[in-house]
């Protein structure tokens, strides 16, 4: 690898490690100092490596430079900001030694994950903060991922960091009696991060895929330490495996979305599906089924393309169960579709009409689908209504195509 490629690659993998270790060392209230040192360190690499060549052990080089920069920072700041540095010198043995052991790196990263997903920080900001600190994403990339501008992201991150400080959140493992609650917040954040990548309206496939993979990577850190006691961690991981198995199959060469029915199953990643099954199996250890268990089971059935009676019976049962835990319009619509597969379209239509989701375009495309073979005129009217309500161009085009296929 040449420097041009190596540095961005290392930045992705190493910056979050360095930043977690420094935060652990300085205390999270000096989070900006850690951020500055990380960027300075990589700046040094960018300046030196092209001329002096890539060092033999690039990681060790980065760690050493980060350490020196930390030391310089302290000496420099002690001249004009005696209070802060005194405080740091007292609270940690920073002075010279920074612990770069594998163990400390992974502990610090995991503790950072808990800190970022602290319940006092709003969910949106948690995701942004996780991408910045734990995934080495730049502000531009985060803004692109959220389809918003840099200023918004900067503000959001600033507020989140202020919160980290004002709540005096420490880098530590949550105490035993809070572990389940804290893990729930982490799981929700990673679930949202994954969904941001999987479902968002973002056209940039590279970023979307990265978000999914990062969510999985962060979740893997939790699996190692906690999944044996909290099985829903496995369930969420299984869900992510099943969904991401289709990441490559659902876009054609021109970037158009390919609907599930039309996807080439040969492009589905069987390794990920197998991995998902393994984790779903491990997730059955607990005494209750979380929404992640149910969603993972549903995602499993999505990997079975064949329309069997067992499949739809199971899917209906799972959607019923999901709705018992938590109502959502999308679950209600999907449940009604499963109902049409298990019983008849007429029965599903009667149930669909009770849903009254009249501002939801998917409600009308569901009705259109249920009426397709019964009453094509009605099917068309529902499709027109769906087009009227959809905001996205590709979605509108897809619905237009369906109208054309009705042949009326």
């Amino acid at each position, binding site marked *: 690898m040449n420097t041009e490629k190596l540095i961005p690659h290392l930045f992705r993998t190493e910056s979050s490690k360095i930043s977690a270790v420094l935060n652990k060392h300085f205390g999270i209230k000096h989070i900006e100092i850690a951020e500055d040192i990380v960027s300075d360190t990589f700046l040094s690499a960018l300046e030196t490596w092209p001329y002096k060549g890539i060092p033999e052990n690039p990681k060790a080089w980065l760690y050493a430079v980060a350490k020196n920069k930390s030391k310089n920072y302290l000496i420099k700041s002690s001249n004009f900001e005696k209070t802060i540095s005194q405080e740091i010198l007292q609270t940690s043995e920073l002075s010279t030694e920074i612990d770069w052991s594998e163990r400390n790196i992974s502990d610090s990263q995991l503790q950072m994950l808990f800190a970022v997903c602290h319940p006092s920080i709003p969910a949106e900001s948690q995701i942004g903060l996780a991408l910045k600190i734990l995934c080495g994403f730049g502000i531009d990339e985060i803004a692109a991922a959220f389809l918003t501008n840099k200023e918004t992201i900067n503000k959001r991150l600033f507020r989140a960091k202020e919160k980290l400080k004002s709540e005096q959140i420490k880098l530590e493992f949550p105490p035993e009696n809070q572990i389940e609650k804290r893990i729930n917040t982490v799981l929700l954040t990673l679930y949202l991060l994954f969904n941001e990548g999987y479902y968002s309206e973002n056209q940039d496939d590279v970023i979307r895929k990265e978000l999914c993979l990062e969510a999985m990577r962060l979740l893997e850190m939790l699996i190692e330490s906690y999944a044996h006691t909290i099985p829903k961690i496995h369930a969420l991981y299984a869900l992510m495996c099943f969904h991401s198995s289709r990441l490559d199959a659902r876009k054609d060469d021109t970037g158009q979305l390919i609907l599930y029915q039309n996807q080439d199953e040969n492009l589905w990643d069987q390794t990920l599906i197998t991995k998902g099954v393994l984790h779903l199996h491990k997730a059955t250890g607990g005494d209750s089924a979380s929404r992640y268990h149910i969603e993972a089971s549903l995602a499993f059935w999505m990997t079975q393309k064949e329309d069997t009676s067992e499949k739809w*019976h199971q899917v*209906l*049962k799972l*959607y*019923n*169960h999901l*709705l*018992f835990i938590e*109502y959502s319009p999308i*679950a*209600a619509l999907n*449940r*009604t579709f499963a*109902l049409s597969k298990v019983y008849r379209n007429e029965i599903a239509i009667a*149930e669909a009409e*009770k*849903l*009254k989701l009249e501002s939801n375009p998917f409600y009308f495309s569901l009705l259109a689908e249920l009426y397709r073979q019964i009453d094509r005129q009605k099917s068309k009217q529902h499709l027109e209504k769906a087009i009227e309500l959809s905001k996205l161009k590709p979605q509108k085009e897809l619905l237009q195509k369906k109208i054309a296929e009705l042949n009326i």
Partner: protein
Amino acid sequence: MDEYVLIMRHENATGQVSPEQMQAWMQQTMDWLGGIAAQGKLLETGNGLSFDDARVVGHGGVVTNGPFGEIKETIGGYVIVKAESVEEAVEFAKGSPVLQGPGNTLEVRKVAKHDFK
């Protein structure tokens, strides 16, 4: 929006059904409740009440086995729904598979809210 309890009453219940019957009945019940939940109107799936180990405690502490025998009707379970009116709650109740048994009924009762503040 008010809360209503739908109480399922069985006539001549013995608690003895074949596993196949039980499974079919469970599925129908889940599909019925799923339909209410899909409208965002299911508050609690409630609990089925077991026919085993049932006792009736009467005046003066007299304990009898079961409600069966002396009373023809037993309560099989309950669910709690949200509804705009008692009519809507009644519509929900009409879908219950319990009503397939002749003589079975569903009692619809509004939850009386007490303000303790």
